[in-house]
């Protein structure tokens, strides 16, 4: 089944694809011909053939070979940094190379400082070496021990999420690195009540015997009498209070501390002119979630997150918001949860949608102007009824 949800990283792929690269110990780290092969075919089960055993072993050997790969540094672009444990940050000696366009923050002396996740990422990909102030080099294991050690319980998960997004090509920064958000919350107003009231529209268009019981002895029912406007039926049926975009939140309780906090701001890779000192509004906001200790966010927690969520279109989103289906599927604002399951990351988008703000009955086919081309995002797609 071809579907949006298939992801190459969903399941472990066959490492023998890596043969080509794990064997090439002499290539310089700047060779760019290391592209990924296509998804391979795995077997359903063991068939007890030596052939299968051989294929397995060669795949495993490819994996061990790749894992044992060295981190090589070119003398010209060599980057060193020193870890200051009391600050929980690393200072880069001389910030050379393209990474520092998007990674790190500069102080008044022009020195670049790195957060733990930035430090580990650069170390892992072989773009930097790390030292203690006394000159002892910090190994990768050492970096995990000291950098993640004080990041709190989800330190490794946050580092992993950061690296995962960087590896996928995104620009990632710690949320509110520059200035914390000013969240203004309006929660003193109740939700707007529904439009159901007797004389709110022209009487001539609507006689509702339900409301004039002495005239007619018909069973009580909401929709009765003469309607010459079909939409009026829908309007009369709208009794349940529903959240509308721009309206107040539904949960009015005093908020307890929200365990779900925006961890990272993320920008799409296209940002060639990205300035880390004055970044544009982020394309995505990511909340790193501990799935072991937390349940799904409650409505209250979700509404709090939405108050600082990314508004669609701020960044020239290409999503066509003229169409009701797009509005209902993608909403006005969105926040992304990174759910960590012992090293496996699952992302889910929470979108702020409102069906009441986009009533389906108002979505009528417009007079055809475009020569019978079908309207809307309702492309024909396979699916189950």
């Amino acid at each position, binding site marked *: *089944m071809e579907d949006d949800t298939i992801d190459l990283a969903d*399941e*472990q*792929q*066959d*490492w023998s*694809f*890596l043969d080509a*690269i*794990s064997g090439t110990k*002499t290539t310089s*780290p700047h060779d760019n011909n290391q592209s*990924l092969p296509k998804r391979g075919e*795995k*077997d*359903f*089960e*063991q068939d007890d053939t030596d052939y299968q055993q051989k*294929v*397995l072993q060669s795949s*495993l050997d490819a*994996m*061990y070979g*790749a894992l044992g*790969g*060295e*981190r*090589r*540094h070119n*003398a*010209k672009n060599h980057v060193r940094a020193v870890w200051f444990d009391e600050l929980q940050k690393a200072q880069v000696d001389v910030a050379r190379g393209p990474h520092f366009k998007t990674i790190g923050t500069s102080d008044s002396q022009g020195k670049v400082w790195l957060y733990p996740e930035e430090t580990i*990422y650069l*170390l*892992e*990909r*072989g773009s930097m*070496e790390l030292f203690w102030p006394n*000159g*002892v*080099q910090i*190994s*990768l*294991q*050492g970096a*995990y*021990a*000291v950098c*993640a*050690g004080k990041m*709190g*319980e989800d*330190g490794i998960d946050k580092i992993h999420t950061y*690296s995962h997004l960087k*590896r*996928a090509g995104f620009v990632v920064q710690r949320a509110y690195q520059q200035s914390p958000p000013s969240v203004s919350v309006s929660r003193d107003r109740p939700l707007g009540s529904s439009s159901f009231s007797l004389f709110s529209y022209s009487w001539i268009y609507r006689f509702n015997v339900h409301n004039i019981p002495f005239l007619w002895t018909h069973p009580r029912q909401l929709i009765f009498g003469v309607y010459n406007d079909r939409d009026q039926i829908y309007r009369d049926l709208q009794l349940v209070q529903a959240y509308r975009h721009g309206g107040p939140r539904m949960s009015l309780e005093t908020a307890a501390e929200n365990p779900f906090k925006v961890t990272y701001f993320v920008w799409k890779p296209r940002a060639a002119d990205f300035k880390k000192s004055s970044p544009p509004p982020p394309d995505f906001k990511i909340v790193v979630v501990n*799935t072991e200790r937390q349940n799904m966010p409650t409505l209250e927690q979700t509404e709090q997150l939405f108050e600082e969520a990314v508004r669609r279109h701020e960044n020239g989103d290409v999503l066509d918001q003229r169409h009701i289906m797009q509005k209902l599927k993608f909403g006005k604002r969105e926040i992304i949860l990174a759910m960590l*399951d*012992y*090293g*496996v990351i699952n992302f889910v988008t929470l979108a702020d949608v409102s069906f009441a703000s986009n009533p389906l009955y108002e979505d009528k086919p417009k007079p055809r102007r475009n020569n019978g081309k079908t309207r809307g995002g309702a492309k024909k797609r396979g699916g189950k009824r």
Partner: protein
Amino acid sequence: MIQIKRINDKYLVFKVEDIRFLRQEHLIGGTLIGTLPQIPQQNVFCGLPLQLFKEEVIFLMKNGIAEVVDDSASHVTALTSQTPEDIENYEKQRHTAQQLQIKEYTEGMLERRRQALEKKGMSGKIDKEVVVATDNAISYVTDATTTNETLEGYNMFSKENVLSDLLEHVTSAQYYIFNFLHSRGYFLSPGLRFGGNFLAYPGDSVRYHSHYIAIGKEYEEKFPIKSVIVGGGRLGTNVKKCLVLGGENDEGGDSVYCIEWSGFG
């Protein structure tokens, strides 16, 4: 016995030999979470370290295969006890290694260049060309810099921080179903991505598709039919896996069931 490094509440392995041992001797795969230096711009194949999940750690400890070390503490203790001589020694070693690498690299480059020019029949130009070509290309290679073992006495300090009895007595429905499948030769990985506790493979996950989405339940634990049986069974069918639900029954035996959409109705 291998050492699992604990950082906060996460369990990591940093040595390739350990990964090979866990995988091939004990069907313990973990999940690689680091960046592969050779191909850092992708997420399909990841590098060291390897993160183990809770049930894997419990299994390894229960069976005396591994011990858990508080790595943050070990590292700092080992570091602060380095003498100035240790550090000087260390720097000397590093310098020597670098010089050697640079020499090897330069010689290699020279040799290749020479061969290339000879092939083109331009051996007369060799000396001049080679000098120009290698001048800018000096590089050096450092070790994989993956583990802490370069630190003087590190292993001793880590042994002092062993947390062996931490998980000895943990039992749960999840561990039950993990153990049920693992002891039958299945290879397991975290399963949240497919809505289960684990995915189970009929052999090493690099070669086989997973067969099961496994969920552990206490014997009398209630679960909603609509989301667990209908949702889980339906999902299993969509992704060509069986949903396995199970727990330990009153008599200490196995009550394990496979759920599969019937294809009708």
